[in-house]
């Protein structure tokens, strides 16, 4: 039985460190290669020794696919390719390829320069790793080798995020990466055609959430920011450098312009400028509005947003600061948070998901006293707000995608186990497909029944379709032919040709059956009666009375011989080849019923 095997090395019933191994029809593909935010030890990278203990990874993997540039999806890539060792192709979209190294470099700097870790990948390794990357376009089918092909679909989420379809023969798997089904201020919605894959591997970050309309969210967000600024408070918005940051920037920028506000907006990271440059370039990946208006003004050229300097944090008066990283677990956002936490006029807005163990997660779950490094206790007086701005599909969005793609089974990753459980139940109930949610290291196997293509000679096809009624595409049709399996290929040919090819003589198989009929009359009279009888019944067939006293029904021969002992009983010999089995047996059963009484 052909099967597809899926093993998450990361992101199985978990968020972070996305890394999923898929074996499909003998091909092994690794989907994403991320790091985990919550850990600083070995657990931050997927356990690549699972793939092989001592051999080269290249021998075991046919390709690696990176869905988008977030570190939890590509953070382990240089480690994997340079330190563990992988030389095969790595696929990602053009924007991902452009932005990914900036983030990796930033990540490396924080880990090595700030935390002083050794045995970490170097800048050169990032560069070497990126050399192995093959960039793909949307909807471009890339042949990895003769059998394996991949194709990217738009996924929303962040610039350049893509869903990938992996196909070998008629078996296929779709991996969604992270995606967003509702368009936002700078990206469109994820879209996939009805590709009916055998398996859809979907993220499920918001498996139990159905979000409000985005306009309400935006309005709430702007209102909160505006109120705080008018009060003279400071607003801290922890973001990851890329993705939501740009979304919120566009939102605030247009709002500031409209309301003519003067309070400064700062953006904390130097790398943003570089990344914004790419946002300006990859206009085709953004939403309809930006694509249509960039000729007049590129929306990513901000007027109100300036670069942040560390000294600004102590300035009096209102301000809005975007600071990285987004979960308040380290870096500048944490520093600013410490400074401002004590004042109840200030506000922190968490625009997205926070992994367990981070400061962000703690304050959101209501902790007001935090233990910082060095046993300090930090009291949080500032307002803590949560606005779901992360560009993941909500429960309804996930269902919508499943409906669009119509997969034969679904596998959930990148989410919390409890929430997945709920969604799994829903999917099974509403689509009547199997749904899996393996944990890390757990292998899910599903059996497929792939179609096996067989070549048929045109002559045979035409001949066979000519027989019988009009072809009806929806119904299976019975055909006679010989299946030849040779050199790993299948061919359906006519028997004659098969014989010729195999150099065999043709044997005819004939069935002959005797039918006893009680009839006192002479032979030829009886034959005539039989002939008339058959002619009366088998109107659609050609029934012939041959001069030698036998009857031909199509190719079936009926002959009458007199029984020597009993003059009253005549014996009919019915003879047919095995091709005419159907008609032949019908005839004999017909004849066995006897002839109708004649009216003389």
């Amino acid at each position, binding site marked *: 039985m052909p099967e597809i095997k899926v093993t998450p090395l990361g992101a199985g019933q978990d968020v972070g460190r996305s890394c999923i191994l898929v074996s499909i029809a003998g091909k092994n593909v690794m989907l994403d290669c991320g790091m985990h935010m919550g850990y600083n030890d070995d657990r931050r990278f997927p356990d690549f020794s699972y793939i092989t203990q001592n051999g080269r990874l290249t021998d075991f993997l046919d390709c690696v696919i990176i869905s988008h540039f977030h570190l939890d999806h590509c953070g382990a890539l240089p480690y994997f390719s340079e330190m563990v060792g992988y030389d095969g192709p790595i696929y990602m979209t053009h924007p991902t390829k452009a932005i990914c190294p900036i983030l990796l470099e930033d990540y490396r700097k924080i880990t090595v320069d700030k935390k002083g870790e050794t045995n970490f990948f170097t800048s050169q390794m990032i560069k070497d790793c990126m050399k192995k990357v093959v960039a793909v376009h949307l909807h471009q089918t890339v042949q990895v080798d003769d059998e394996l092909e991949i194709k990217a679909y738009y996924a929303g989420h962040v610039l350049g995020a893509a869903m990938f379809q992996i196909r070998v023969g008629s078996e296929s798997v779709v991996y969604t990466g992270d995606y967003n089904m509702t368009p936002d201020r700078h990206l469109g919605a994820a879209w996939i055609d*009805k590709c009916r894959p055998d398996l859809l591997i979907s993220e499920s970050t918001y498996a139990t959430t*159905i979000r409000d309309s985005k306009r309400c*969210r935006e309005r709430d967000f702007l209102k909160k920011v505006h109120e705080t600024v008018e009060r003279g408070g400071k607003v801290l918005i922890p973001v990851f450098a890329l993705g939501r940051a740009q979304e919120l920037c566009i939102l605030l920028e247009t709002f500031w312009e409209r309301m003519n506000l003067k309070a400064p907006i700062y953006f904390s990271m130097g790398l943003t400028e570089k990344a914004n440059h790419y946002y300006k370039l990859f206009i085709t990946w953004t939403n309809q509005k930006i694509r249509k208006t960039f000729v007049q003004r590129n929306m990513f050229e901000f007027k109100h947003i300036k670069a942040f300097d560390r000294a600004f944090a102590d300035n009096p008066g209102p301000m809005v600061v975007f600071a990285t990283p987004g979960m308040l677990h380290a870096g500048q956002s944490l520093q600013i948070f410490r400074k401002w936490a004590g004042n109840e006029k200030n506000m922190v807005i968490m625009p997205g998901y926070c992994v367990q163990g981070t400061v962000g997660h703690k304050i959101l779950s209501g902790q007001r006293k935090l233990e910082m490094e060095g046993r300090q206790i930090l009291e949080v007086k500032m307002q803590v707000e949560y606005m779901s701005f992360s560009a993941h599909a909500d429960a309804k969005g996930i269902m919508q995608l499943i409906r669009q793609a119509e997969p034969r089974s679904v596998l959930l990753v990148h989410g919390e186990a409890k929430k997945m459980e709920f969604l799994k139940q829903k999917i099974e109930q509403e689509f009547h497909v199997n749904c899996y949610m393996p944990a890390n290291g757990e292998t899910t196997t599903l059996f497929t029944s792939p179609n096996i293509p067989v070549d048929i000679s045109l002559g045979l096809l035409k001949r066979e379709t000519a027989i019988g009624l009009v072809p009806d595409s929806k119904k299976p049709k019975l055909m006679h032919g010989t299946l030849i399996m040779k050199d790993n290929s299948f061919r359906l040919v006519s028997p004659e040709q098969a014989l010729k090819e195999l150099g065999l003589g043709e044997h005819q198989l004939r069935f002959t059956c005797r039918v006893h009929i009680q009839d006192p009359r002479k032979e030829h009279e009886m034959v005539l009666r039989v002939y008339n009888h058959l002619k009366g019944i088998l109107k659609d067939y050609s029934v012939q009375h041959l001069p030698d006293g036998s009857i031909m029904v199509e190719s079936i021969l009926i002959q009458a011989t007199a029984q020597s002992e009993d003059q009253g009983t005549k014996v009919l010999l019915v003879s047919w080849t095995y091709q005419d089995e159907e008609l032949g047996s019908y005839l004999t059963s017909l004849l066995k019923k006897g002839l109708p009484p004649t009216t003389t």
Partner: protein
Amino acid sequence: MAAHLKKRVYEEFTKVVQQQQHEEISAKKLRLTKPSKSAALHVDLCKATSPADALQYLLQFARKPVEAESVEGVVRILLEHYYKENDASVRLKIASLLGLLSKTAGFSPDCIMDDAINTLQNEKSHQVLAQLLDTLLVIGMKLTENPAVRMRLLDVACKYLTDSSHGVRNKCLQLIGYLGSVEKGATKETESLVTKDVQKIIGDHFNDQDPRVRSAAIKAMLQLHERGLKLQQTIYSQACKLLSDDYEQVRSAAVQLIWVLSQLYPESIVPIPSSNEEIRLVDDAFGKICHMVSDGSWVVRVQAAKLLGSMQQVSSHFLEQTLDKKLMSDLRRKRTAHERAKELYSSGEFSSGRKWGDDAPKEEVDTGAVNLIESGACGAFVHGLEDEMYEVRIAAVEALCMLAQSSPSFAEKCLDFLVDMFNDEIEEVRLQSIHTMRKISNNITLREDQLDTVLAVLEDSSRDIREALHELLCCTNVSTKEGIHLALVELLKNLTKYPTDRESIWKCLKFLGSRHPTLVLPLVPELLSTHPFFDTPEPDMDDPAYIAVLVLIFNAAKTCPTMPALFSDHTFRHYAYLRDSLSHLVPPLRLPGRKLVSSPVSPSVTPHEDPSQQFLQQCLERVYNLQHLDPQSTQELLEFTIRDLQRLGELQSELAGVADFSAAYLRCQLLLIKALQEKLWNVAAPLYLKQNALASAAAKQIMEETYKMEFMYSGVENRQVVTIHHMRLQAKALQLIVTARTTRGVEPLFGMCENFLQEVDSFQRCFISELPHMQDSFVDKLLDLMPRLVTSKPSEAVKILQTTLRQSTFLHLPLPEQIHKATATIIEPAGESDNPLRFTSGLVVALDVDATLEHVQDPQSTVKVQVLYPDGQAQLIHPKPADFRNPGPGRHRLITQIYLSHTAWTEPCQIEVRLLLAYNSNRSKASTRLSKSTWIDSMEAVPPSEYGIEGTIPFSKSVKVYIMPKPARR
């Protein structure tokens, strides 16, 4: 007429004989070409050596039209070649030509139908087959009245439905859709049997393997519906299955079909699959179409969103679900109220995404009640309004508008969503939602926070948006006095930011004030900044913001008698001033102790006949009785009346159109009388060369005036057109007489005479039905004298004309019901700037032009912009059709850019910009009555009866723009 003329000419002048011969020859030629068309084609096709050649010939042939009578011959020849031809592409072209030919007007294609059907039999190529079926469709469309033909074609179509090519099947289905019998309950039973068959046949192809055929089948079904055949309800379930088709065009068509069925059988009951409950069909269809609003293809989404708007029979709770995304109830349980309440409760499991951790799993819930996909209508509009494509969003807003108009409770609910849409990133969407809001505004009252969002849009940089918003505020209900204050503050802010919005803002405040007098009342002291003890300084009367405040207050005071007590002295003075200067914005108020302001148009006296209307009638009657007066007093009376009418037009804006129109007519008459009173007529010809300047100028002026009368007024009816044309005819006669007297020699007169007689002839033809009304008029007499005129020499004819013109009576101008003069005001450029617009000579500068047009019909084709340079050079600019907007009935707005360029000037100078109304006398109402033949050949045969005079009428004041083209720097 022309024949008479020719005869006469023939008698007198031998020269002209040749001319006639020439004409005869040309006529012969024409006759020769007719049969040659098919013959030439035949020869050409025989000559063709290769299929490519033959194709070329056919293509050339297709460019020329064929007369109805020779179509059949051509068809025969084509068919002959068709049978001989081996190349499929040539056969295809022939087949398509057959279709084109059978469309020829006046040709009945039944004679070629048999041949066309016969050709089908031996055809092997699928493409040619499809084309032939298309031809049959054309033939069938021309012969829809003939049931036998239809039956025959249907048979053919059904036969070829089994073809393996999708193109052929497509065409067959199309044929069935267009020709399937519609007569229901016809006399014979067989007829109804066929009716049933048609739907079944088409229905069978809903499952065709080819998506193109599937969509063609649905379209054929829709076609049947359009032709009036009642579709059977059984199709509904089939159509529902098609909604999940793989191909978007099928889904899109299926959505339409479902919509049609839901309109046909709204009340029938359908079962819900997987349960044993039933709901109304329209509700079910509504749910299904709502579902399609989240389809993968945006084409389908647009289609679905559009159709939702017209499903007004849907139950209200389904309707309200469309705005609710969190309510996860499924259709099945919707029937009982307590179950619904329970579901509402259990759906709380979902997190809103606004608060962290509110999605922590609570107690185990009945998951069966929570349905993520099949809930259909749930949140359809929420999805539609935040769709990625603005086309979908606009469609959703439109649908929302239509549904809200029919359901007040829904209107109340959708308000929040509409207000949200005011912040959409695409301007068109914002505009559309503002318009939508205006349309439903009588159903709603804005809350303060909603008003806040609405007013924020006033700062939008787009003028269209701001003006749409002003219109919206005109008819909005505001609930609190804070709301009014907020609106006023924001509008004033808008005024300072965009001073050009002045008029629009004042108008907006006028309505805001008159709608909410009680809310304005407590604000008055603050707004007027009056103080109980101290006198405050008198505000500047010319300040637009102050005027805006006053407009609001005065309009509120109209229905609130206590308000004037709060006014200070200068307010009353300002009232008197504004009432005079901005009478359309400031209503009459009954102010205590100030009778001079309130009395004149107080509502106490309301006679049925408006006095000014009466006055107008009296004026005109006075004039029409004037035959019996002596010429001198006639002139005086006319002059007085014209003056009266003009003044009336200025005073009474609603009568302006009528007054101006009548005045223009009287002016024409006055000019005519004056011209005829000239002494010159008694003087011998050579002596009055100088004096006649007046007469010919009068003739010219009358012509101009008549064109203005005909084209500048909307609402002119046929009666008036006749009178105007009659006046023009008189002017032409005058012109002819004057020329006859001044020019020496007779030869140039011939042409003029002939022309004039042709004019009279065409006048008679155009207005034959109106002639009885024109007793004793110029034309009436002229027609009596026609035989004499035709046979007499030009000099005599002129004499006859002169006497007729002098004897003829003044024709009464019947007044139309509604008549409006086309006017235009250029708002921008304002023409006040002292700073010249500088640009480098040889390059181009763009000048923004903004103008309002009133009562202009079809402005896209008639309104032009004219630029006059100081050197007398004039430039005519045709604005793009997209530059015209239509903010209200009879009103248009032209916002365009014109490009100026000139060689270098030494100093800045002013150019003039004005709007012109272009007209073409061929397009006039008179000529539309002439039958127009479609073929070019026939048009050539008949010379245009009335040569089209094209001209322009300036209808706006010209605005001066200071410009300075600088020499280019080297």
